């Protein structure tokens, strides 16, 4: 043996002539360098993840923090009021207009001079005055900046925010008296009243008018069905007449309610706040349309913190406002949770049943191995393919048939023959069933044979062993699969784009009107909401903070679920690490 090694070593060592040590060292240095690069690759990956999460966290969490309002005085004597969003260095100051605002700074970049300038991205808001929402200001055109205490930031229900200086309050066209001469106190008081009124109007619309609308719609469909079924049938005719009469009286009732609603809504318009913009123009803003009235520069740290918490609360529990650019994302959170729950009801029994068959009942052989590989690989099939299948099979085929059988009276407008939460959940169940099968199988396989044999030896049948011994022992594995499946479903968007997503759901898939659960309704989804806000919205600058916040929420949910699944799985593996045979 030693001789053999020598013959191998000799020719290699010979040419360098005692340079073996040297060679080894250079090889070592080269190798070390490569190892460092490998380590660098790992560090890069980790850094990327940390950066991504950090970027989302910083941007998503900071967007609720109220920024100060800055009054800019330009060298040419003009004024502007806004909040600073971004500062960047531009390599040369090209000929931007004197007021320093240009719609798209990037396209105006000449980038061939050596001297540079700072420029600032400012939100001027006030789009209804013809102002651009966001704009760039060149630092060197600014003469002075101040933070005026009386500048107000007003969030509105139907428009993007308004920034200006409150001057007076008018009631029905005449100047109103102020409470103790303090305009802000008065605004706060009136705002409180109006928000209350808004609440009253909302419940009125939803409960009184909404229920009548629903009933009318039901009667309309009933009538259509009767007309379609029996034109000459005497009983049908009287029924139709009866329906007509009811509809008529209900329509009258509806009109009365509508009038009442209009009167109520007039109340929202009665008080207006007159504001002066930085340019000196006066605008009237109805107090009834204000969602929040803030004077940022007057707020201390405590006040801002309270505002922050309120905004986070609004984000989580309120409806979107103003074409999804403001307000909350509650319907999206609710829709996601509903869909994931519905999906879980479908995916757990199916996944576990298939895993049980594959692991416990099927004869282990070539075919089962193939099936297992196939199921495994379904998890790698692009999600869009499942979406397509969902559209073709669930929506068009199954949904279309259900419509023809049970909802023929409302055709051609489809009930189940269009995207909805049920179809979305079932599509995602198909998408995630391989995950559950694989994890459940792993869980079942981890149950030691001794345990099964013990149970069988005590006289239990196979079914009893499986049901009472194996499945409870494999439960963490099954749960792991379920959590992984839920996390995937919560983050998946592509298939949902096809089978039942909407920008803005006016109704929830679960509400107070019978039958409470509406599986045919469209719904909102966090992931799709991100896509929609980012790419279907004209004013991306205004929605960006909300997209960041939503993205952060989504990855927080998905990550929390995954971490739970990982720790469960590790726990399971440790538990059976020694025992599995």
């Amino acid at each position, binding site marked *: 043996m030693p001789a053999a090694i020598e013959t191998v070593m000799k020719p290699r060592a010979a040419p360098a002539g005692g340079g073996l040590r040297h060679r080894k060292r250079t090889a*070592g240095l080269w190798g070390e360098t*490569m190892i460092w690069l490998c380590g660098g690759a790992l*560090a890069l*990956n980790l850094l990327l993840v940390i950066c991504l999460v950090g970027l989302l966290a910083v941007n998503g969490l900071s967007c609720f923090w109220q920024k100060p309002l800055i009054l800019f005085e330009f060298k040419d004597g003009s004024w502007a009021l806004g909040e600073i969003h971004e500062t960047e260095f531009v390599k040369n100051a090209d000929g931007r207009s004197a007021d320093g605002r240009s719609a798209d700074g990037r396209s105006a970049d000449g980038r061939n001079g050596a001297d540079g300038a700072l420029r600032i991205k400012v939100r001027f808001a006030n789009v209804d005055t013809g102002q651009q929402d966001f704009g760039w200001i060149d630092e060197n055109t600014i003469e002075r900046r101040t933070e005026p205490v009386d500048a107000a930031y007003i969030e509105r229900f139907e428009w993007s925010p308004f920034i200006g200086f409150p001057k007076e309050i008018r009631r029905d066209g005449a100047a109103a008296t102020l409470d103790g001469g303090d305009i802000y106190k008065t605004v706060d008081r009136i705002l409180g009243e109006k928000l209350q009124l808004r609440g009253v109007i909302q419940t009125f619309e939803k409960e009184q008018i909404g229920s009548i609308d629903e009933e009318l719609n039901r009667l309309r469909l009933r009538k259509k069905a009767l007309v379609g079924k029996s034109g000459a049938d005497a009983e049908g005719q009287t029924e139709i007449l009866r329906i007509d009469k009811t509809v008529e009286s209900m329509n009258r009732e509806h009109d009365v309610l509508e009038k009442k609603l209009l009167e109520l809504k007039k109340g929202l318009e009665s008080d207006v706040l007159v504001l002066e913009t930085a340019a000196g123009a006066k605008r009237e803003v109805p107090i009834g349309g204000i969602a929040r009235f803030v004077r940022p520069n007057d707020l201390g740290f405590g006040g801002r913190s309270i505002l922050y918490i309120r905004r986070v609360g609004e984000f989580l529990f309120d409806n979107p406002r103003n074409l999804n650019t403001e307000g909350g994302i509650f319907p999206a959170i609710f829709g996601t949770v509903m869909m994931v729950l519905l999906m879980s009801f479908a995916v757990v029994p199916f996944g576990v049943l*298939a895993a049980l068959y594959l692991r416990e009942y099927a004869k282990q052989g070539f075919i089962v191995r193939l099936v297992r590989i196939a199921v495994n690989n379904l998890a790698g099939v692009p999600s869009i393919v499942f979406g397509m299948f969902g559209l073709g099979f669930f929506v*068009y085929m199954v949904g279309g048939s259900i419509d023809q059988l049970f909802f023929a009276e409302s055709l051609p407008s489809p009930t189940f023959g269009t995207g909805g939460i049920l179809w979305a959940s079932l599509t995602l169940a198909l998408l995630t069933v391989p995950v559950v099968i694989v994890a459940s199988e792993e869980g079942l396989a981890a149950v030691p044979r001794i345990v099964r044999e013990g149970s069988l030896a005590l006289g239990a049948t196979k079914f009893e062993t499986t049901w009472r011994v194996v499945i409870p022992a494999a439960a963490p594995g099954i749960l792991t699969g379920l959590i992984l499946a839920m*996390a995937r479903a919560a*983050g998946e968007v592509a298939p949902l*784009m096809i089978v039942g997503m909407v920008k803005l759901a006016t109704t929830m898939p679960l509400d107070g009107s019978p039958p409470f659960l509406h599986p045919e309704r469209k719904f909102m989804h966090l992931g799709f909401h991100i896509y929609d806000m980012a790419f279907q919205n004209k004013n991306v600058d205004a929605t960006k903070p909300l997209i960041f916040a939503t993205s952060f929420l989504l990855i927080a949910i998905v990550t929390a679920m995954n971490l739970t699944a990982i720790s469960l799985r590790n726990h399971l593996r440790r538990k059976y690490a020694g025992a599995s045979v």
Partner: protein
Amino acid sequence: MGISSNKDRSRRAETSARRRLSDRFAKYFVTIGGLAIIACVLGIFVFILGEVMPLFAEATVAPGRFLSFSSPPRAVLTDEYQTWCLALEDRGIVKCYDLAAGREAPEFKIDGLEGQVYARAAAKHGGFHVVLADGRECVAAVKFNIDFKGSVRVVTPIVQKPAIFEFGAKGPSDASDARIGPEGARGLAAVSGDKLIYLNRSVTKNEMTGEVEDDISKTEAAAPANIRRLAVDLEGQNVYGATRDGELARWRIQNNKLEPADRVKVGGAPVSALGFLLGDQSLLVGQEDGGVSVWFLVGRNTDSKILTRIRDFKKHPLAVTRFEASTREKSFFSLDAGGGLRLAHSTSERILWEGRSPVADPSGILYTPKADGLFVYNTETLAVLDIHNPHPETSVKALFGKVWYENNIEPEYSWQSSSSSNDVEPKLSLVPIVYGTLKGTFYSLLLAIPAAVLAAMYTSQFLSWGLRRFVKPIVEIMASLPSVVIGFLAGLWLAPRVASGFVAIISMILMVPVSIVAAGFIGRILPKTFRARFPQGTEIPCFMIAIAAGAWLAMLSSGPVESALFGGNFQAWLLRTTGAEYNQNNAIVVGMAMGFAVIPIIFAVAEDAFSNVPKTLISASLALGAHRWQTVTRVVLPTASPGIFSGIMIGFGRAVGETMIVVMATGVTAIMDWSPFNGFRTLSANIANEIPEAPHGGTLYRILFLSGLLLFGFTFIINTAAELVRQRLRSKYSTL
């Protein structure tokens, strides 16, 4: 005792039977249920295949009803619901046959045709064209009014006052063709001897007086001898003629003036039939030897267009006598002298149906306006063929080959599923989309493979146990990040930053490795006693700091580098030197984002493969004096390479199917171009973009299912192959 034991046994037997029953029931339930679920999941493939199959099905053409004419017709027309058959007879009589009932309705008389003898008569969609024996030509527009009385449809035919064209000839023209628009006759071209005469009709209505002015202007040009067939397009831009010598002539009409003819040889037998495809741009040429070819004008600008032979179809056994084009897409019927009928589609080059005329010696054919039927008639009978031809425009060649579309100068791969005008056909080549898919995958793997494989190698071979416990979950979290979030960041955050700092990105590629090596070197020369104070695994945070420092340096230096190398502006430099435009949402951005999504997938599998390399092999190598790196490259890497390969394959599969990142981070331009500064369109993004608007069951819908099937099959095969490789590897080394 005996009794009691008997009782005992029977009780035991009773319970055991129930349990056995439930056990057996459970067995069947699980087996059937499990198999059913697996079958359902695998049934997705079958369902998608089922949606795709009709694309390649042939057209069905079945004989429908028959109608006997009471007197021989010269030409027939019908409405889009096939309610009426209007038959033009001699002496200006138009008979109306109710096709459903087979009855005759009151007939029309065309003014000015009473007692006239016809030389020829023809029907075009929109009206009848009659050539009288005295040389005059007469075009009578026919309209169908559609009304609804309650839910009953009432179709009323209206034969309008004819337009009479006179061009001074004594006898009938040799050949002629009329332009009939929805408002009536627009013009007429005729050949008489060696002259081509074109008459343009303009009808202007005086808004004030309501007077209608019917004006016919005339223009002439020389024509080659022996012209047999003539065709003028609806827009009145070109007149085409075919001679007995097998030549095609084309006259351009400009400002109502005929330009001299261009002449092209067809070759072979004399031309016996001429016709247009939908849109009146493609010319159908039928010859006496049964040849059928499609021609259209090809040229870079309107003045230099030349009539070019585009494609040939299988020959008819006998001379082609007539063409009839669909009004829905580019398919057409051709009829030969022996009554042989054929339905073909021009763009897809498919023969959709072949058969024989149901009536003997057909004198004419008519494609119904909805393209759902063909009227074949002789002097006595009319037969209606019912046509079901849902997807004529798809063939393997149209989907995957180069197709020469009208208005293009050469055959090309092109995807343009919807168009503004009805006459422009959808272009459905999947090649640019498959190309885009591969391009996106290529750029993402360019980043992902080195980053993932090197990191996996480090994790499994060099990383301390303590850190490994953190790294793996982090990578799993990375894998689970929703792609919509990555796509949003790529599209709205990364893309503008890459656009403005592209040079910084390039210098990062150089600076980051350098700074990593520098950091490693500094660590090495530090005294051992100092190094020993830190726990194992400290190198990773150090590397992170080094990377951040390198990136920061790269950003700092990018300004001077950009002005030194690229004249201060990389995008302008790129355009100037290579002519490539910098598109903000380009392949680099998608590559980075998709690479990020793929890294954890490759990492997981590769790490598994590295870890599965038996420790004995590594120990043996080290014991023989090999360095750590030598061991890794010469022992670990070759052993684990099939596993790494399968990891790359799985990553490839993921990148191929990724949807949201592509949809959000790149435009969806379907162009074929390897440039990293351009966007692309992938199969998955194409589905996501187009399927919501694709009508259920339509051609686009099924083609999108076909691309889904491609994705499905592709990823399934790749994943299966990768899985088999992995399993083999595992069983091979499990014994070591």
